[in-house]
Structure formats: structure tokens, C-alpha cells
């Protein structure tokens, strides 16, 4: 090793000698180490070599010499150069204190690189100016403020945490005086996983959790949207809260078996909830009453043409036959209200839903419209498409409006609050602010779609209410193969007059998304026949 030849040290050529020998055709190097031309696109090469005469001190962890640049203008880059590597005592003290890493742009490289002559590994944050936006940016995105929870919320968090730790699937957050529950806390519920039984002669089995969430006897005003992220929610109780509406996204809780929303301030249910109340769904228990629901102004309503109306409005049912017996809820349509048409959040039709927050009982009665008639304001009626009476395909058609597109973009802004401040400062009318609030609320609770065409919609322009009757239904499938027989048995859930009709609100995104007009019956309408279970 020691007698390995070393690279020859190039004698420093003087300018004079260079000019004599090469007559200026070759590049000359001065005595000073060359300064690197910053216009070269990449860093100079760094290489190390073992060509040190003092190679016998490998044991002391000698660092290899490092050279920067081309071989002919080599000079040590690392601190232990050839001179200092003779012994540790002779090593000069480090001259430069550790410098901050500086980023410097090599202009044609397109890459930001640290300067090579500083050997520090400390990661320094880049001091780049944030891009200038016309909207106010979040004040200090780097500072993450730990949210402060109230005592009640902290209590809830503790309970959820203990459920996670113990693998218990029943989360009992009832009667905690919660006015709201932050999503960050409630999202923890989805972390719950059951602890599998480990015993002799029992096969190890990983099963999906079936989470039961009890939020009853609190003061929640808004449906906590984090619930939608809990995949395996089977029981949800929101009994005795102050909810005024259920979000349409509740239909995404496909695993729900029990739903209790009694003793709230609900006036209607979202029509999307009906997707949990049809054959094949898992929901087997639902508690809706008491709630200040809208009621029809006619006590015993029932009308024909329900099937025609449903197929015409929402497209043909995907009726793919039951292959196994099923027990759950179904609904049957009793009546519907006229359609409320609105234009820029002002109602333009004669029929209008009451807007007062607390309603006396007599105002909760809504008028009805026969399924074969459809009242459309004159100015709109003439302009609707000619296909009004056709059975519509249920698919979104056409482009969303610019207003809605812009609203969606605004709501998606990271700093929504200051965007709203800008909006209310700039605009004279509070139409925008109201629309913005609405959009923000809807995107918080998981979106809202048009019931007819299925398009996302923030400001529905048509709204009507279907009164439906809940039935417990059992389907018993007998036989097999070709001779499969389905027997449907339905029984009314409630015969009590007040709880008979349950209102489901339907929302349409355009003036074309309205109920289908059933054909006028020639005979008087028959009562629905219900067979006993």
C-alpha cells in the first residue's frame, strides 16, 4: 500500500513559461487556485484518493482526502489535507465556523444545490418567498396550533381513546353536553379494531369491526361529518339532539343496521336516506319519531301512479331480484307536495316551504299535489325542454353553471374564512355570502347531489317533498333455480296518524329536474293493499 505510486503533483507553471512553451494556445493556470466559473452547469467533480503518503494511520479512522475539480488543479477540500493528516496534533483548528447552508442558483442548471465547499449536513429550511396570491394566504401555515378542546370534548376524546385501547366497539358518548364534536376527535373512532379472540382450538379470525356509536342526549346542532369516514358503523344513535337536518351523504353509511334520530328538530329527511330503506340494505331498525316533521294537510292521503312517478323521475329501478331472504325496511309513496322553484335563492313558485325556524303545528302542514299534475310557474313552463313527459335517464347532462363552479373553487380554498371576508367586503349584496355559507356547509357535510340527474349541486333550484310510509318488509325466497319464488310481506310501521307520513325531501339541480307527471288515472285511486306479516 505504502509504495503505491501517488499522483504526481503538477508543478505550478508560471504564466511566463506557459506563454513560452505553448505560445498561448493552451489555457494557462495561474498560481492561485482557479475560481470556478459559475456558469458551468453542474458542480465540479469531487473525488477522493488513497494517494496519501501517510497511509499507515488507517486505524485512527483517517478520512480520505477529498479533491474538488479536475485532477490537475487538485487541492484538498476536506479539512484533513495532506499536510494535516500527518498527525492529529498538527491538524489546524477548523478555521471557519459552521456556516449556514446557502442555496445559490447556478443559472443554467435549473437545480438548486448547496455550495460544495461547506461540509455541513444541517438541514436548513429554504427561505423562499411564498407565491403571491390575490387571496389572503393562511397566516402562518407552518405553525400548527394544537386545537384546544373544551372539557366536554376532551372527555369524549378520552372515551374514544379508551375504546381504541381496549378494542371495544361500543363508543358511548351520550349525555356529555356536547354542542359540537370536532372531526379530529370523532375520526379516531375509525381506528377502533376488535381484539380477536386468542384461545386454544379457536381459529384466528380477523373480522371487520362493527362500531356502535352513541351520541344521544347531547346538544349537537350539526350532523358530525366525520361519521361518514367510519366505515364499519352499524349502530348510530343521535337521539335527543338539536339536529335540524340530516345530510344527504348519510346514504353512504351502507353498513348501518340501526339508526336512531328521534327527539331532534328534523322537519324532513333527505331523499337519499331511501337508498338505505330498500330491499337488500342492512338497515333493520330505525327510530324517527318524535320529530317536528312536515305533515300533509290531508289526513289520509294515498295516490295512484306512484310507480310511474318513481320510474319517470328517478329512472328505472335496478330490480335484480333477491336471491336470498331479507328483512328490513321499505317505503311506499303516499303523496308529494308541489315543486318549489327558486331562482338565485329566491322562490319563484307559488308553493313555498315555510322558512321560519320554529314552526307551530298548523304551519307544518304542507299542501299536496296529485302525482298526475304538476304546477310549473308560467315563465318557466314555456322554456322547459320538450322532453318533460319522457321517462328520463338518470345521468347528469350538460355542464354545471359558472356560479357553481366558482363557488366550489372558493369553498375549496385552504383559507376559507378569509376568502369569505374578502367576499363580504367586496360585494354589496349578501347573496354571495349566503351562497358561500351554504356551499361551505354542504361541502362540510359531504356534498349534495341532484336526485334526478345525480349531479353535484350546491344550490338546488327545485325542491319537493315526498310523503312516504314506512313498512317492515320480509322477503322469503323459496325454491331454487328456475322456480325461485319471492314472497314479499309488508306491514306498516305505525298506524298512528301523526307518524304515518314521513317526509323525504328531493332536490333538483335544474328546472328540468322535476318530478315526472304520471298519467291521469281513469278510475278512482285504490288504496294500497298491505298484506299482514
Amino acid at each position, binding site marked *: 500500500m505504502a509504495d503505491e505510486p501517488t499522483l504526481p503533483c503538477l508543478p505550478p507553471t508560471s504564466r511566463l513559461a506557459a506563454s513560452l512553451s505553448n505560445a498561448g494556445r493552451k489555457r494557462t493556470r495561474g498560481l492561485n487556485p482557479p475560481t470556478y466559473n459559475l456558469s458551468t452547469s453542474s458542480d465540479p467533480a469531487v473525488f477522493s484518493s488513497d494517494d496519501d503518503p501517510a497511509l499507515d494511520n488507517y486505524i485512527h479512522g483517517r478520512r480520505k482526502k477529498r479533491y474538488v475539480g479536475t485532477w490537475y488543479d487538485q487541492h484538498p477540500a476536506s479539512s484533513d489535507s495532506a499536510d494535516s493528516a500527518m498527525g492529529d496534533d498538527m491538524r489546524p483548528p477548523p478555521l471557519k465556523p459552521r456556516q449556514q447552508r446557502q442555496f445559490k442558483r447556478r443559472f443554467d442548471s435549473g437545480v438548486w444545490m448547496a455550495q460544495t465547499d461547506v461540509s455541513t449536513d444541517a438541514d436548513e429550511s429554504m427561505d423562499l418567498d411564498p407565491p403571491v396570491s390575490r387571496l389572503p394566504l393562511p397566516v402562518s401555515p407552518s405553525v400548527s396550533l394544537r386545537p384546544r378542546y373544551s372539557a366536554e370534548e376532551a372527555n369524549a376524546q378520552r372515551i374514544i381513546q379508551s375504546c381504541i385501547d381496549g378494542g371495544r366497539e361500543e363508543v358511548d358518548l351520550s349525555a356529555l353536553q356536547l354542542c359540537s364534536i370536532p372531526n379530529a376527535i370523532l375520526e379516531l373512532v375509525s381506528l377502533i379494531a376488535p381484539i380477536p379472540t386468542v384461545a386454544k382450538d379457536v381459529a384466528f379470525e380477523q373480522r371487520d369491526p362493527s362500531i356502535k356509536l352513541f351520541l344521544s342526549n347531547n346538544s349537537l346542532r350539526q350532523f358530525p361529518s366525520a361519521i361518514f369516514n367510519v366505515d364499519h358503523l352499524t349502530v348510530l344513535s343521535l337521539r335527543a339532539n338539536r339536529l335540524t337536518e340530516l345530510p344527504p351523504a348519510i346514504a353512504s353509511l351502507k353498513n348501518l343496521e340501526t339508526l336512531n334520530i328521534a327527539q331532534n328538530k328534523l322537519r324532513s329527511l333527505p331523499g337519499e336516506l331511501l337508498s338505505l330503506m330498500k330491499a337488500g340494505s342492512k338497515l333493520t331498525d330505525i327510530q324517527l319519531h318524535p320529530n317536528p316533521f312536515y305533515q300533509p294537510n290531508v289526513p289520509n292521503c294515498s295516490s295512484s301512479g306512484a310507480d310511474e312517478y318513481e320510474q319517470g323521475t328517478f329512472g328505472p329501478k335496478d330490480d335484480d331480484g333477491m336471491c336470498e331472504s331479507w328483512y328490513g325496511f321499505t317505503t311506499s309513496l303516499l303523496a308529494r307536495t308541489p315543486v318549489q322553484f327558486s331562482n338565485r335563492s329566491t322562490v319563484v313558485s307559488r308553493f313555498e316551504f315555510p322558512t321560519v325556524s320554529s314552526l307551530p303545528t298548523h304551519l307544518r302542514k304542507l299542501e299536496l299535489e296529485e302525482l298526475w299534475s304538476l304546477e310549473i310557474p308560467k*315563465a318557466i313552463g314555456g322554456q322547459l325542454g320538450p322532453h318533460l313527459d319522457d321517462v328520463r335517464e338518470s345521468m347528469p347532462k350538460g355542464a354545471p353553471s359558472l356560479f357553481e363552479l366558482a363557488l366550489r373553487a372558493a369553498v375549496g380554498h385552504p383559507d376559507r374564512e378569509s376568502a369569505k371576508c374578502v367576499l363580504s367586503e367586496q360585494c354589496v349584496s349578501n347573496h354571495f355570502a349566503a351562497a358561500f355559507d351554504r356551499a361551505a356547509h354542504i361541502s362540510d357535510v359531504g356534498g349534495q347531489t341532484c336526485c334526478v340527474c345525480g349531479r353535484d349541486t350546491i344550490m338546488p333550484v327545485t325542491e319537493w317533498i315526498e310523503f312516504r310510509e314506512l313498512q317492515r318488509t320480509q322477503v322469503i325466497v323459496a325454491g331454487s333455480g328456475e322456480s325461485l319464488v319471492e314472497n314479499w310481506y309488508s306491514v306498516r310501521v305505525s298506524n298512528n296518524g301523526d307518524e304515518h307520513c314521513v317526509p323525504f325531501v328531493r332536490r333538483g*339541480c335544474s328546472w328540468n329536474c322535476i318530478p315526472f307527471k304520471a298519467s291521469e288515472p281513469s278510475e278512482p285511486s285504490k288504496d294500497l293493499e298491505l298484506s299482514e306479516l
Partner: protein
Amino acid sequence: MATKSDGPSNSKYITMVSSDGFEFVVIREASLISPTIKAMLRNNFSEAKTGRCVFPDISGLVLEKVVEYLYYYHKNVNVPYVPDMEIPVELCLVLLEAADYFQLDSVTVGTAFRSMGDTLKF
């Protein structure tokens, strides 16, 4: 672009001018999607005669996006499952105002869209 033979009042194109002087030549049919423009072009207004609509409150940047939307809508009137048009976040608030000005809000979506310019009468 405007055809000279029909005169500006019947030409296939109209010109939209922004506050900072940018001019956009738009197919008339697409521009009529906006009830506001439709009303401008309808009667004996100077816009109807010259086919030139000046919007002194709307900057070129915003008007460009509006024109883009007009074409986007025009192209996708009856196309199912249209992908949303990109709206840059920094423009969304001004575009909200512009959408309100051009009456391109949710009510006009659908096939009812094309003929909505008349005042609602009940």
C-alpha cells in the same frame, strides 16, 4: 372574423371587450347562453347594432375565463358526465361576481338555459 355580408347585427360572431381593452370574438350562439348578453343583443341597443359588447367592470383575465366557460357550456350542453372546468383559486371570487353579472348561476343549467333571458312573470 365577423362576416361583412350580413352586417354586424346578424353576424355569426360578437365581440366582447374587457375593461383593459382585451377583445374576445365569440360565436354568437355561445354568447347567448348568458341572459345578460342576450338582453344586450336583443333590442335596438348599440350593442345589437355593432355586435360589440363592452364590459367596463370586468378585466381581461376574468372575461377570458367567462368566454372559456361560454364555449365550455356551448360544447357540452347535452353531453353526459362532463368534467368540471378548471377554475383557478385566485380567480374564484371575481368569477363569482362575474357569474352573477352574466347570470350564469345555477338556475340556468339544463336545457332551460338557452332561452332564459326573459324576465320572470307570474
